């Protein structure tokens, strides 16, 4: 077992974990932060995307021990009293149906807009290549990211 100290959604945690424990299982099973789901185990679908020190990572491909000392933001910590502009844009543009990919898609979109505050539609599609959605055909996800960009998400 290895001790790690991680800040998740603004709360400091210290835990003993198996070195092989995945970050996503640490979030879900140890901390009970089930807002971040698992979709594929092979880092293809992106449903488990979170921000680690502000940068999007697929938490099924990160060991909990690798997050030692890091600041992790999940979908549960994104809103600050009111919905984050990307969350609001996903709602307003109907960019989700079943909602399973949505936490990862929103986190990836947030990172995309941090990197490129005014993306073209093509840049949005390319930027979200690592996140799969089976319901929407991505049409409204592109619209939502465009709307969030117009609303000005950049920090």
């Amino acid at each position, binding site marked *: 077992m290895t001790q790690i100290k991680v800040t998740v959604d603004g709360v400091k945690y210290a835990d003993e974990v198996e070195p092989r424990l995945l970050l996503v299982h640490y979030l879900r099973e140890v901390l009970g932060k089930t807002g971040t789901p698992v979709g594929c185990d092979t880092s293809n679908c992106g449903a488990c995307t979170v921000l680690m020190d502000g940068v999007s990572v697929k938490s099924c491909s990160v060991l909990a021990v690798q997050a030692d000392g890091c600041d992790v933001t999940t979908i549960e910590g994104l809103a600050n009293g009111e919905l984050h502009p990307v969350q609001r844009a996903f709602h307003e543009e109907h960019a989700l149906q079943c909602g399973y990919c949505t936490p990862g898609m929103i986190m990836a979109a947030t990172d995309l807009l941090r990197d490129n505050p005014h993306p073209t539609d093509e840049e949005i599609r390319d930027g979200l290549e690592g*996140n799969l959605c089976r319901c929407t055909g991505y049409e409204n996800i592109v619209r939502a990211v465009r709307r969030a960009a117009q609303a000005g998400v950049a920090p």
Partner: protein
Amino acid sequence: MTATAEAPSPEIGQARLRKEDAKLVTGQTNWTDNIKLNGMLQMAFLRSPYAHAKISRVDVSGALDQPGVIAAYCGADFAAEQGSLPCAWPVTPDIIIPPHPPMAVDEVRYVGQAVAVVIARDRYAAADAIASIDVDYEPLPPVLDMRAALAADSPKVHDAGNKSYEWVFANGDVDAAFRDAPVVLERNYRQQRLIPCAMEPRSVVAQWISDEVTVWSATQIPHVLRFALSAFFGIPEQNVRVIAPDVGGGFGSKLQVTAEEVLAVLASRKVGKPVKWTESRTEGNLTVHHGRDQWQQIKIAADRDGRIRGLSVDLLADMGAYLMLVTPGVPLLGAFMFPAIYKMDAYSFKCTGVFTTKMPTDAYRGAGRPEATFAIERIMDELATELGMEPMELRERNWIKHEEFPYTTICGLTYDSGNYEAATAKAKELFDYDGLRREQAERNARGDTVRLGIGISTFTEMCGLAPSRVLGSLSYGAGGWEHASIRMLPTGKVEVVTGSSAHGQGHETAWSQIVADQLGVPFEDIRVLHGDTQVSPKGMDTYGSRSLAVGGLALVQACDKVIVKAKVIAAAMLEASADDLEFSAGRFSVRGDPEAARSIQEIALATFAAHALPDGVEPSLDSDATYDPDNFSFPHGTHLCATEVDTETGFVKIRTYVAVDDVGVVVNPMIVEGQVHGGVAQGIAQALYEEGVYDDDGNLVTTTLADYLVPAAPDLPSLLTERTTTPASNRLGVKGVGEAGTIASTPAVVNSIVDALRPLGVRDVTMPCTPERVWRAIQSAHGANGEVSQSGGTA
């Protein structure tokens, strides 16, 4: 449109933002895998590495020595209680339905079939212990090709043989049509095997308390599952509660009674603790039922002027190793759709269901209708080429004209409504059909290495499953009704209980809109409950684009009953005769005296108090209704796809995609547009990207999302969607929409690719139309019977 104060604009037709979203965008969801119960254990399965083998020995003792392992079982341990997974659709009297034990006992028949289970304290310990189970297999020859499987000397999947059933249908003089017609074409198409890939993996939790079991499952069908657990596994129905919490997509894949659900229930009972199982994506690709997988032979007979005389279809449908819930019935849902929107004199259909040593197939978005629509729309293009006609003109010459509805097709279905001319005209205009045809001709004339193709799909489909009598006549094991309850709360708020079980479709929002209009209560005051058999005890669940066309109508009928009850009480409150009251916008008023009125909320409170109800009137407005439609729902539309096909690389780029759908009256245009987007995307995925592939030994090689290509955002085009509205014959005028896009889009894309390459001699490309397949199709046609690309490109 200006709304007056007296008549608020109806909720139906408004693009209401979804009530479902608040929890979904903030991670406050309740997926099955999120559930934690005190003492809950985790299950992991050992699965067959062989496509076909005898099991001679299973030894789970090694697993029991591992830390944290509570129990381990093999198939023999469940033999007395596990029974057989149900098949609810015995399509013919002599169909072969082999026993299908949830856990294999003495023989495995596909890679991934469960052979043993470990129950441990956590999922890591359970997964570790799986490696300590010993199994001795005696490999048997796999059966992988449907055509070879029917040969007399083929190895057998089951002792009874590899043919499960043969189902036939015919109407009109088919022999005469094919004998007398001057033009007869035959084509053979391959519907590849697809893997549904809902984003949420399957997950199940089972908990026994005394003799009662609660099952949480990522299912589309909590009610059917409850019935099945009782009818087939001996648990008294009143002791079974099934809960479908938030469910992350289904597309038919969660329309199933699965081995893992049954084994979770049985294993939990054995260990006396709640157990959970959540699949990995690899387990999902291996063991969630697959879709499609047919060989289609289609023949069409026509006059020289293009009039269709007859159609004949002969299918081989891969059942996989067993018949699951509706496996054999899926091709039948297509049987009635090959004639599509076209008039003809005669039609014959034959389907042979074939066993192979692969994962069983079953319903996947569209279920039978995408396959049929593909074949008819592909051969219409081929017929147009043969006749030298413009393909849209050929379609128009044969389709049912708008003034001919209701129209009874050669299959005996009565299409209640439709206007193919209107949808097509709108689609052609949006698409710039004539402009693109001109560009195509120019590119062809100059021998452009990037060709332009135009693909047409003028589709219809039958959905809204369905009239119970019709389902019965097709030997389906259940009815097709849907249930709804309205509960008027004392404060005037409304609880709506629906038997349909949404998993992304937006029922909470759309159902609120329907009830708001019927009862005249605010959209915000309505709460929709579903997905728990204790909350919603009656239902037929969600599949086959049935929720609105069946469940939506059940809501209307339940609201009718509320209004009837409320009227009696309103009359007493207003000291008027009930006959003198009219109900509008949530208020009962006395005819001719609009000031004398009571709102439905006031009546709800008065009913709760029950101080002054008329004699014999019960103090409740709550009402139930069960609606059984008298016909299917027939959405239709015209989809047009323009592709640019690079003849040097085989790469296909969708340049323009137009979808004009007629789904009748639209409750929420935002949700409907979303359904079309997602449906079209899934159909494009079949055309271009996805295929479940088994190797020569029967191993599935597409076990991850790296191998099975669910398209990502850059792989799909932006879509142009529009609607025409021909109201259906039900009271809301609504039709189903969930599958229409998937049914329409696959042939539109492939027709477009073939249209682009026809000048090069290409007559077909097998799906998925990968760059390699397109390139090879060009190569094999090269110089054979077509124009050779002038700028080379294919050297």
